């Protein structure tokens, strides 16, 4: 008997979308949070290798004194593009990918609150980075004035200048829209019983990060819009010859730039607070304190910007204010490090790859934090400013900090996403090689900076030769080690041993994501889960 379709059948179909579209439509028209999260993560991975190749060019040129591989203009383009790609193309999209995958599953929502906006946020990115990377092929070369885009230098960028400015606008729009989606999802889509003060700390750290993004990305957009009008429409916001003030650009830029550092690192704090309790087999020590510490770091990040500009010159009161406010950040950060350590204290620790990366993060990020304290002291900063000491400092924060945080998160949740466990032994090899080489790469840069080697130069005095060679060897080793990471992800997608629903069965993972199957169903929670 033929089945007659009724209005009720259509209503039934509307409520049960049975799975993903097939072929390219699944990805181009994606509204599913997992599909969009996957696209973000793949995009970030590609950009990580593109930015990494640029780092290899930089370290190859610096392997020994003298100019051997590239001309100085191209070298400066490499440093500028490496930074822009790693910050906006690799780390930020990786965090957004993790947020897309995990936040709906952790708060018990069926999807992100605004799925179409989510699709739009992602698809802006490939266009933005195609535009940015295409500047490598314009006659004037890619932007070479540093990622900070200080005028008047950045205004001399030739044809690439407006392309880079437009690309930055697009990246900013993507970040703002993605952040709005995160805030709206967490504030409105939590399942019953998932309260603000019992949701996973990854959600908390992302919620605070999203607020930071919404407040600061428009500031960067405003700054580069003013640069654009200075260049093309005869305004003089930053042009001294027209009565403008180039130092104002630095103030505006760093009002964005310093919170940006925390945008890159706060989600890693959230991931640490997930992983360390799991593999310590203990609840997190001081949940509430962790939330308040994250919020305090975010607040303080708005009032420290001028510590990047001590050498520009400012009144003594300004120097004191920015020194003290910067040092105050160490208090909530110290609370976090103390709480992670206290979580491990007398715990039953095991050292799976996510935990290894978390421990490495804890030690090495703290080294970056300590060198940051040194840079906060005005007379010391006068010596260190624009030297390789600064390069070592922020790379310790961003590589074993943000990047290891991402890797820890991927190793933690990858079996949940794919349904397959990765090769644990190979992942430990990846950890050890990364941790050893990242120190070989960046620790000698402290010595170079303290000895006076300036940053952003393709050639240097022979007195710096030895440590530069060591640093370059570390860079090549670190770069090659990351091929293992790509292989492990690929092999987990292709399938090895099946992962259980809880994945880390002999540890104690908490959270709603572990109640779902591995891999989770296409629509995570069709009915709101009950939090026990």
């Amino acid at each position: 008997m033929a089945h007659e379709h009724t209005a009720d059948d259509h209503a039934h179909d509307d409520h049960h979308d049975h799975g993903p579209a097939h072929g390219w439509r699944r990805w181009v028209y994606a509204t599913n949070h997992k599909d969009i999260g996957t696209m973000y993560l793949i995009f970030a991975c590609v950009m990580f290798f593109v930015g990494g190749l640029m780092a290899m060019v930089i370290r190859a040129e610096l392997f020994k004194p003298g100019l051997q591989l590239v001309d100085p203009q191209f070298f400066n383009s490499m440093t500028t593009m490496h930074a822009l790609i790693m910050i906006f193309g690799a780390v930020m999209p990786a965090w957004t990918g993790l947020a897309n995958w995990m936040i709906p599953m952790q708060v018990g929502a069926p999807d992100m609150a605004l799925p179409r906006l989510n699709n739009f946020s992602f698809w802006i990115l490939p266009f933005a980075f195609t535009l940015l990377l295409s500047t490598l092929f314009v006659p004037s070369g890619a932007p070479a004035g540093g990622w900070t885009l200080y005028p008047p230098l950045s205004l001399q960028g030739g044809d690439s200048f407006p392309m880079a400015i437009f690309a930055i606008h697009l990246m900013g729009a993507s970040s703002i829209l993605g952040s709005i989606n995160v805030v709206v999802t967490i504030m409105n889509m939590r399942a019953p019983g998932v309260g603000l003060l019992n949701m996973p700390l990854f959600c908390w750290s992302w919620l605070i990060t999203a607020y930071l993004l919404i407040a600061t990305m428009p500031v960067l957009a405003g700054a580069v819009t003013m640069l654009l009008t200075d260049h093309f429409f005869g305004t003089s916001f930053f042009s001294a010859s027209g009565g403008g003030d180039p130092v104002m650009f630095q103030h505006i830029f760093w009002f964005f730039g310093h919170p940006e550092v925390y945008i890159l690192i706060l989600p890693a704090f959230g991931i640490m607070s997930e992983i360390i309790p799991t593999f310590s087999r203990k609840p997190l020590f001081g949940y509430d304190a962790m939330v308040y510490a994250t919020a305090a770091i975010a607040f303080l990040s708005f009032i420290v910007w001028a510590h990047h500009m001590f050498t520009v010159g400012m009144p003594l009161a300004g120097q004191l204010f920015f020194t003290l406010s910067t040092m105050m950040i160490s208090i909530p950060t110290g609370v976090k490090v103390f709480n992670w350590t206290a979580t491990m204290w007398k715990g039953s620790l095991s050292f799976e790859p996510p935990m290894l990366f978390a421990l490495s993060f804890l030690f090495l990020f703290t080294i970056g934090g300590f060198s940051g304290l040194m840079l906060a002291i005005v007379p010391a900063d006068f010596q260190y400013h624009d030297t390789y000491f600064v390069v070592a400092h922020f790379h310790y924060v961003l590589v074993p900090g943000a990047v290891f945080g991402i890797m820890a998160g991927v190793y933690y949740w990858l079996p949940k996403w794919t349904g397959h466990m990765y090769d644990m032994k190979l992942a430990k090899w990846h950890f050890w090689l990364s941790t050893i080489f990242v120190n070989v790469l960046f620790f000698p840069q402290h010595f170079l900076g303290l000895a006076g080697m300036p940053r952003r130069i393709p050639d240097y005095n022979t007195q710096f030769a030895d440590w530069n060679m060591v640093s370059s060897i570390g860079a090549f080793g670190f770069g090659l080690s990351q091929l293992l990471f790509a292989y492990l992800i690929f092999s987990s997608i292709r399938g090895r041993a099946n992962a259980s629903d809880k994945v880390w069965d002999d540890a104690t993972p908490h959270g709603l994501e572990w109640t779902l199957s591995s891999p989770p169903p296409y629509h995570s929670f069709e009915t709101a889960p009950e939090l026990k």
Partner: protein
Amino acid sequence: MAAATSGHDDRKRNVRRTALWLGLVAVAFYLGFIAMGVLRSVH
């Protein structure tokens, strides 16, 4: 059933309202900083 629909509508309204407010905050920061630049160059 009616209560469930009303809850769904409420959530939809809250989602839109939150998104709109956050969008306005972003626009305010963008225009505000440009306005500050304009005011500073006027003086």
